């Protein structure tokens, strides 16, 4: 039975549907120095790169990044001196080799590292998404990961006395993703037939409501109603949404464009030396004021060449 008693009080005030659209600068300003942040994407795919560039331009410091399979997004943040602590299973550039800035910072002992395996790193986000603080795992038994990661503790299964490791949940304070489209109110739509990298992004999206999403294109509310089966992140989760075309470049935005191999190879070569890395940062990040200027530098021909519109649908 509905209780009709107190409805009048709620009805007496007309509230607006909250628009969550903001600029890249406004969104990046939400991340304070020292924040614990999970940046979406997987290896070569779907990193919110324009957002990362903006964080670097803002010279944010002492971040803790909590991730699973990291690529150029983390390498740039580390190279630009934004990161104090890294929790992950992988930082690398796949066919383009090791992550040069991460490698250098690690070898100089400049980073606090919390090493996890890939599945355990995924599990940390699933654990957070369930609102739990830890989960048990036997995967790391015998490896040197627990020895060098004080956040992993050994425990005893009270049911059968066997040993396990207690793995802490990911618990990001902020999650930032890049997605194909969304509306002004924070509904985020993906195409169908999502591969695992995008499904992992959805797990991340469920770890907090401090969620920032950059999208290739803002769409209307009508569009969302029409394509509601593709709505993968309900608007209550989203704190801010920013329209950023080619916002994942040089990583891919799956089903729209591929990762930019030429650019990634150029970066991998350049960033091998400190000077080359600084030149890259100066040219592509500090040297531009807006994402559009960055895209101008990359060039229309390169960008158009990456398109795979409808890929894997």
């Amino acid at each position, binding site marked *: 039975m509905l209780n009709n008693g107190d409805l009048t009080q709620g009805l007496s005030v007309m509230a607006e549907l909250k628009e969550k659209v903001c600029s890249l600068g406004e969104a990046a300003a939400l991340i304070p120095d020292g924040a614990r942040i999970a940046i979406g994407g997987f290896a070569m795919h779907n990193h919110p790169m324009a957002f990362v560039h903006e964080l670097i331009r803002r010279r944010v410091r002492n971040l803790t990044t909590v991730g699973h399979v990291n690529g150029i997004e983390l390498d740039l943040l580390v190279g630009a001196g934004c990161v104090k602590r890294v929790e992950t299973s992988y930082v690398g550039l*796949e066919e383009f080799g090791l992550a040069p800035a*991460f*490698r250098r910072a690690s070898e100089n002992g400049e980073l606090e590292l919390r090493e996890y*395996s*890939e599945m355990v790193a995924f599990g940390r986000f699933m654990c957070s998404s369930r609102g739990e603080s830890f989960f048990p795992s036997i*995967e790391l038994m015998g*490896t040197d990961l627990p020895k060098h990661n004080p956040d992993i503790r050994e425990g005893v299964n009270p049911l059968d006395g066997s040993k396990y490791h207690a793995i802490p949940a990911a618990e990001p304070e902020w999650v930032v993703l890049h997605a194909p489209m969304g509306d002004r109110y924070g509904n985020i739509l993906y195409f169908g037939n999502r591969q695992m990298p995008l499904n992992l992004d959805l797990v991340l999206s469920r770890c907090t409501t401090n969620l920032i999403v950059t999208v290739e294109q803002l769409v209307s509310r009508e569009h969302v109603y029409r394509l509601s089966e593709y709505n993968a992140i309900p608007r209550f989760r989203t704190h801010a949404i920013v329209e950023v075309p080619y916002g994942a470049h040089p990583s891919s935005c799956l089903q729209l464009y591929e990762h930019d191999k030429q650019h990634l190879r150029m970066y991998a070569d350049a960033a091998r030396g400190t000077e080359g890395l600084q030149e890259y940062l100066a040219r592509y990040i500090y040297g531009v004021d807006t994402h559009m200027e960055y895209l101008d530098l990359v060039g229309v021909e390169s960008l158009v060449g990456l398109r795979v519109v409808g890929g894997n649908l």
Partner: protein
Amino acid sequence: MSEKATIYEIMATAICRELRDDETWFLGLATGEETILLLSCVPLVAMAMAQDTHAPNSTIMIPGMFNPVVSEAPTAMEAEFGDRIRDWRCEMYSTMNPNLHEATHTRGEVDLGFSSVAQVDQYGNCNIVCIGDYHKPEVRLIGPIHQPGHLAFFGREIVVIDHEKRNFVERVDFISGVGFLDGPGSREQLGLPGGGPCMILTNKAVFDFHPETKLVRLKSIHPGVTLDEVRDNTGFTHDYIPDQVPETPPPSSDEIQIIRQQVDPRSALLPR
């Protein structure tokens, strides 16, 4: 046709002979171009070759796909996932939720996987994290990624690497994948359900593990490679060379045909 097998075909054949019918095999991400050739392309050819011969009921799992049509591989597997694989037919896209993927692994449903390493030691422990002291390493590598899971849960693991002296050490600098740790009984004591490593395959030789001592031993040397060459390029300090070391059986001419005409007709995976 009596063309000679290439080194990659010899390696693929060595793997193929380790694969059994009714198994599931998993291949993950590789970093660096040479590693992609050894860790992605060679095993893919081996798995497809096995499916086309003695193991039709097996399942190939690669990032994003179950049972891809390997002969239609567009190019070498340079990146996990990605839209280019839409041109590559398969029985099922693993568009799955990550925890389904995880469950397959932790439930022990993968019979065999493949690893690359920067170091492997006499008990088959693997390292892809760092060379030197963890807190101030000489070389920082990619991080453990899925190696702990492979070696904890998979039925067995094949390590595929370039044959360089520095890759073979008495004890790895960081254990990111547990082999037989300190010897017999170690895995059982740790409660690890998987079988651990079964083979180290290089471009010069095949190693396996002594069933009792769990120490690495030289199993065979590839055609055209000498024992001295292997000895000079292997850093193990224990006695790993048995009295008799046979030649790695190369692919028969029929097997070469299967590789070149059925499995990799466009030489998209293996250079010829």
